[in-house]
């Protein structure tokens, strides 16, 4: 089974790919990776959510933490490929406009 997420670092850009279900069981290990990403003060972060099928409030919280952390460090962050249930959740929470989805 493929890892639910992986991180690719290239020059000043960091790409986080998240797949499957980002929920209360899978968010904690991702949060550890998010701490590492934020600590590196990246200039640009791309979060590829095209493979993300399901998200819950814990998963949203992890991505909000990443969003805040990158921006407070002076970087930019873009979330791409959001679809179906995760998009419905972001819209419900009115985060689609904040994240430019």
């Amino acid at each position, binding site marked *: 089974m493929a890892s639910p997420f992986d991180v690719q670092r290239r020059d000043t850009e960091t790409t986080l790919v998240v797949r499957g279900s980002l929920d209360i069981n899978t968010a904690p290990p991702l949060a550890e990776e998010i701490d590492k990403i934020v600590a590196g003060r990246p200039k640009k972060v791309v979060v590829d959510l095209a493979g993300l099928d399901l998200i*819950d*409030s814990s998963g*949203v*919280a992890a991505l*909000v933490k990443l969003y805040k952390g990158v921006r*407070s460090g002076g970087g930019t962050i873009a979330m791409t490929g959001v679809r*179906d249930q995760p998009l419905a959740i972001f819209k419900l929470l009115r985060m689609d406009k904040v994240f430019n989805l």
Partner: protein
Amino acid sequence: MAALAAPIRLSVPGTLRYRALAVRLVAEAARLVSGSSRKDPNDNLANDVRDPFDTAVVSAFAEIFNNVAIHAYKRHGGGLIEVAITPTDRELIIELTDDGAPFDIDEVAPLPSDLDDTTLPEGGMGIHIAKTMLDEMTYEPGPPNLWRLRKVLTAAVSNGRS
């Protein structure tokens, strides 16, 4: 309103370990009502939720299951989560019963009205998601504590039905 089946029942220990199992059952029950089919027939994790009705039901149920495991059973289990699902041709009713600590639903704060870098919430979203996704959500503190979730199939959420 014709029942599609007798109530479907699942009883699992009240920990997050059993969350995926319960969510999968609920996703399949939602499909009985919505008539949707999986886009990926090989998806055995039931992550392939695309129909709006299924999306609402699965999203709400997952949040309430989380809530019971975390708040009622404090992440340590020690009791059961009893799930009773009643599908009809027009709606789905899910009842979750637990014997853990009662939850004070009145203490749930509303989401901030304006979202920006400082107000984006990092918690407290679960009940809001569940309530907004459903047509009706009630909670009766116990024990046993009873959550009752109801989602109606309407034209706006019945893409999967012809």
